[in-house]
């Protein structure tokens, strides 16, 4: 009866040895390749630092003006532009300008990386069912595994700093753009693709002339989700040394500073709303022909 009431476990000693072996293995791996990886990510670090300094050191009216222009180009809507400018003025007035700029920098760079990596992966998934079969479970893991768990190996490999933070953000934020690129391409009307084939289009001609243009609304929904999710990671990323709005939030949690936490938290929300409206507006504007007429 003991067999039924007690779950048959591995021996305590063996279990400890197994865990130790895994830890040791990974530590050796990080000792061997940590430096090489750091060198690999160095250009990204330089770019991130440069971009952050650029945002923080430029005169604030100039930064707001540039953001306002981008908002107009994206959304073509004066309400969005006005709201954006007002929000940034309030954020600055409440003393959160520097942190907001740091967050803006890391979100922009993370989104850029996610787009550059995610869209080609999505395309590969749409092209081959085998690739889709391999990547989908990986994306599931990335989306569901608690972020703290993958912070451990990232920090073991690269230490505390901006790059591990960036990687953590990307791991969390990249799945939607991959998934929606894949979905968007797979949803392209079969007959239209057949027509491209019938006129002798090559694979690149089909991809860039038909599939991607027709998948753009979905790809843009993916970009939008990626931005939202990377903003959601700001606080967790600040635990491993990323500057920005997450740092004061973290301090507010440990010291029970309600106002500090609320203000910085709301600043993140405001950034999210601005990004969302601008990227959605952009996605709609480039697909105008779909909604005109009829």
């Amino acid at each position: 009866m003991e067999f039924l009431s007690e779950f048959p476990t591995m021996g305590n000693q063996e279990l400890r040895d197994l865990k130790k072996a895994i830890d040791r293995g990974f530590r050796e791996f990080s000792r061997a390749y940590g430096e090489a990886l750091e060198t690999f990510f160095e250009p990204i670090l330089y770019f991130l630092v440069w971009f952050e300094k650029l945002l923080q050191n430029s005169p604030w009216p100039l930064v707001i003006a540039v953001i306002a222009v981008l908002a107009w180009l994206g959304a073509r809507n004066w309400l969005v532009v006005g709201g954006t400018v007002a929000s940034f003025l309030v954020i600055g007035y409440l003393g959160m300008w520097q942190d907001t700029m740091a967050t803006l920098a890391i979100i922009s760079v993370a989104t850029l990386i996610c787009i550059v990596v995610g869209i080609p992966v999505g395309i590969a998934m749409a092209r081959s069912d085998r690739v889709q079969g391999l990547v989908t479970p990986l994306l599931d893991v990335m989306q569901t595994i608690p972020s703290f768990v993958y912070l451990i190996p990232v920090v073991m490999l690269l230490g505390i700093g901006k790059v591990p933070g960036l990687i953590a953000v990307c791991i969390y934020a990249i799945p939607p753009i991959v998934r929606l690129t894949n979905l968007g391409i797979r949803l392209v009307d079969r007959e239209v693709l057949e027509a491209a084939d019938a006129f002798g289009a090559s694979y690149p001609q089909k991809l860039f002339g038909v599939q991607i243009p027709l998948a753009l609304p979905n790809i843009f929904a993916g970009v939008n989700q990626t931005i939202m999710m990377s903003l959601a990671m700001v606080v967790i990323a600040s635990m491993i040394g990323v500057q920005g709005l997450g740092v004061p939030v973290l301090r507010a949690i440990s010291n029970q500073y309600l106002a500090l936490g609320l203000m910085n938290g709301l600043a993140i929300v405001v950034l999210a709303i601005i990004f969302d409206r601008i990227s959605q507006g952009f996605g709609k504007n480039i697909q105008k022909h779909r909604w005109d007429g009829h």
Partner: protein
Amino acid sequence: MGTNPGVKVQIRSLYKIFGPDAAAMTEHVEAGISKEDLLDKHAHVLGLRNINLDVAAHQVQVIMGLSGSGKSTLIRHINRLIEPTAGEVIVDGEDILAMTPLELRQFRRSKASMVFQGFALLPHRTVADNVAYGLSVQGIDKAEREERGKRWIDRVGLTGYEGYYTTHLSGGMRQRVGLARALATDAEILLMDEPFSALDPLIRTDMQDILLGLQTELHKTIIFITHDLDEALRIGNSIAILRDGEAVQVGTPQDIIMRPADGYVAEFIKDINRGRVIQVASIMDAEKADGGPKVDAETVLDDALQLMIGSGSDIATVTRNGEPAGSVRLESIATALAKPD
């Protein structure tokens, strides 16, 4: 294999079976297993069985059948959008199935273009860009593309709509874009997969007129799929009737109506207006008549009847190119008009 110079497209012993192990099923199909048995016993779907068809150059070959008869599958074998399980497709003496991917693309770009039932236009491009799509795939520069595209836009009656997105056009106009796109590549073969089936009847007749008008000048080899017998009779120089993946009869419209190969074809044609389709040539006697009005051999029975009743004669002289070729009697017209049982 010998190639007849008048034949543009030859389809030889073509089989298509859908399923994971199609090649292994060919022997069952060749042995004559029925479509139902193949599905029940082997879980494979029979698409086409032993199709043999010669399409004459510069003619309109109609392939007709009900849905599920395999006609759309058949037309896609000609430009190899679908790979056959067995058989040969030969265009101008060249085996389509032996082509490398590059040669096949070249073939699709220059030799055979296609018009689709659901139009299959690019919604993110304008009418002008859609018409020029085949040309842009070929890498032709923008100026020439626009000039050549414009010519076809004018020919199908869409002048002034160049800058519109296709989503803003009606169905009939969209299919004009589809037709212009197919014509713009100057391909000799036009594959038309139920191009007018999605249009309402009046627009459909309009489009048939446009096609027939263009054909009198262009003399393309057209393979035209339809499930509408009136359309088939109106457009086709030759009609192939498909049933459950098999060609049950191939012949001219007159052949099909006068001599249906089996009960299935007879059932198919029983509701047509015979007086408006059957031509005097199909029922005339070789013996020349002495009197009566003259009717051309291609006159349909309704018109011949009216002429003969008008002139009060029960016999008419049938002429071909103005020369007397035979005679036709009122009685034989009445027999031909009567519905066969």
